[in-house]
């Protein structure tokens, strides 16, 4: 094979769909020349379960559980956004106590999700100690969830018009205690990350996203905030208890992976601030935790929630029965992942892993290799054929070596 043809057949390094340490199967084909990435292709759908469609056959109340199971990390964000959407459609307000409880759950989730991210990012960097530590610090948060909601994940707390369970007064000191301990730990982690020269070498200036990129891809959440785009649904379109408490939106300017890490770590402190204020507000009081919703009239509603990974968006249309006729869900990763196209190209494979992780998507590795025939501009569909092709290629590389 001559040189020209060879160039057209770049090695495709697949990332996904299975990886031991990753959550969701997604597939990224990295088109590489040597260690350099020249293009990225995102193939989703390994996780596609047709939730939008299933939602049309379920009762309003059952949909909460369905959307909760869109994702395990943001497992309260989707019900949150969904309930916001229906409440927007209904035009009702939720009782105050329920609003505080909602915020507490949402922020606790942000805490555990950000810690999880720190751990996974550490793992991608081969920094397993950080991985273990961060996950260890995360454990008490999950225990708190187990105590107040009955499960470590998938809390089943949200309900249209309120929350399903109250936070008992005797549990509040437990939450306080966990927060107190966590604060020191996160301070330690933050300090460690900020000061580590090796981390700085690995992360600074890697995977930079400019404001322009953010706008073009519509990226949200910490990804956008790390690039200096100040968007946060909790502030912009206040809901639940967020307008009632004191906190600020964290932004940084550089848009590289390092900044994303910083934004996430600092957000943890804001979350803790919000939680303790909410706890103050409900401690020792009693109150309604759900508003009565008898009918959902026909119409449409939009609900948003700032999930740990960014804005989570639900569009609901009802025809007056007790099932949605259309339920459009947009998870934050859906708009964050395409930013890879901007941030990965020109980087090395080793960096891609952490860039992808920097967005905090749900992504995995271990697929075998596929070869794209760029010349024909056509994807070779047969998987086995791709494998064979790639093996031929390897064979050739080997002989050349």
């Amino acid at each position, binding site marked *: 094979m001559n040189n020209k043809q060879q160039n057209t057949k770049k090695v495709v390094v697949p990332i996904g769909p299975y990886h031991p340490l990753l959550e969701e199967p997604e597939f990224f084909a990295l088109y590489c020349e040597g*260690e350099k990435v020249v293009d990225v292709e995102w193939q989703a759908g390994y996780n596609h379960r047709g939730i939008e469609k299933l939602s049309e056959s379920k009762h309003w109340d059952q949909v909460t559980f369905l959307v909760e199971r869109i994702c395990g990390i943001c497992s309260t964000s989707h019900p949150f956004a969904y309930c916001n959407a229906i409440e927007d459609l209904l035009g009702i307000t939720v009782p105050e106590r329920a609003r505080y409880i909602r915020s507490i759950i949402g922020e606790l989730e942000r805490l555990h999700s950000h810690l999880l991210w720190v751990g996974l990012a550490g793992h991608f960097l*081969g920094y397993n*100690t950080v991985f273990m530590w961060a996950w260890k610090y995360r454990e008490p948060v999950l225990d708190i969830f187990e105590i107040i909601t009955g499960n470590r994940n998938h809390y089943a707390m949200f309900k249209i018009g309120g929350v399903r369970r109250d936070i008992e007064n005797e549990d509040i000191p437990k939450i306080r205690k966990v927060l107190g301990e966590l604060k020191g730990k996160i301070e330690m982690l933050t300090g460690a990350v900020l000061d580590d020269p090796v981390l700085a070498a690995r992360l600074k200036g890697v995977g930079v996203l400019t404001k322009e990129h953010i706008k073009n891809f519509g990226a949200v959440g910490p990804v956008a905030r790390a690039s200096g785009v100040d968007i946060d649904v909790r502030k912009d379109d206040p809901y639940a208890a967020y307008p009632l408490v004191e906190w600020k939106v964290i932004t940084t300017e550089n848009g590289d992976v390092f900044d994303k890490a910083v934004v996430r770590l600092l957000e943890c402190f804001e979350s803790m601030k919000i939680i303790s204020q909410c706890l103050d507000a409900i401690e020792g009081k009693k109150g309604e935790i759900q508003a009565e919703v008898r009918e959902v009239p026909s119409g449409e509603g939009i609900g948003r929630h700032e999930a740990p990974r960014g804005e989570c968006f639900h569009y609901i249309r009802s025809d007056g029965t007790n099932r949605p006729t259309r339920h459009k869900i947009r998870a934050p990763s859906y708009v964050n992942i395409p930013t890879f196209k901007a941030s990965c190209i020109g980087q*090395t494979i*080793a960096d891609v*892993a952490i860039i992808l992780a920097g967005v905090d998507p749900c992504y995995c590795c271990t697929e075998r290799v596929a070869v794209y025939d760029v010349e024909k501009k056509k994807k070779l569909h047969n998987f086995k054929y791709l494998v064979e092709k790639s093996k031929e290629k390897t064979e050739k590389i080997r002989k050349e070596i």
Partner: protein
Amino acid sequence: MSALYIFLSFVMVFLSFSICGMLAMWIDRKLTARLQFRVGPPWYQNFADFIKLIGKETLIPEKANAFMFVASPVLGLIATTIAGTIILFISRTDTGFPADAIIVLYLLAVPSIAIILGGSASGNVLAAVGISREMKLLLGYELPFICALVISAIKSGTTTSLGSIIQFQQQNGMILGSFSGVIGFIIGVLALQGKLGLVPFDLAEAEGEIAGGSLIEYSGILLGLFKLTKAILFIAGPLFLISLYLGGFSLSSITGIISGILKYILILVLFILIRNTNPRLRIDQTLRLFWGWLTLLGFAGILLAIVGW
């Protein structure tokens, strides 16, 4: 010296090194776990792993070059064992030959080459990425490692025989006691870290990036052989370093053995600390580190050694 003696020492080294190596690897795993607030595996873990691997089915990928695929782990194993034998026995008797340190150096590079050969024989592209990294890594750490050897050799009176290096140290104290010695030792530790594939230089097997890398297609006993090689290397490498910088060890007296073990443990603890407080480096950063800083340092060390510091 007879062929029988060599053969016997070879077998002994093989057995003792693999057992000690597995224990050392256990210490590594256990300490790592403890440092991460975990319990960690029981002491027999690595033996269990190995025995289990023997019992497993060995799959040879259809597209693989079967001979190379099978031969390379064996090759690696034999090479490391020979290296171990030289370090432990041959060098300290009159059987030692003048350039044995250099031979050991080359033998210690063979396992990496075996991984490269095996990986490329498996015909997997993720493995290919792994090999290319392993190769760069090998090229990377070999140069500083040579520097480390040269420093020690110069310090001990320009000899490349392990025996005389050790002898020199027995008379004049450890080479570590000098400026150039410290430099050489640091380089040696980092290079060995790379050789053993420990973080921050584990990029050839980087799970998060290329899922196991070069060994991705290996299974069963062949994988077990690789593990065994690594276990032996886990002893042979540090021993080599001890011989070069820490005044070697002696098997003739109890104190000699104990001090040898202590020296070994010192190096092991260094490994574990470095490995657990650092993220994995990128290949280009690794190369920059090895070829840039460490090599410069190495040359500086050589100069210092020549000057006599």
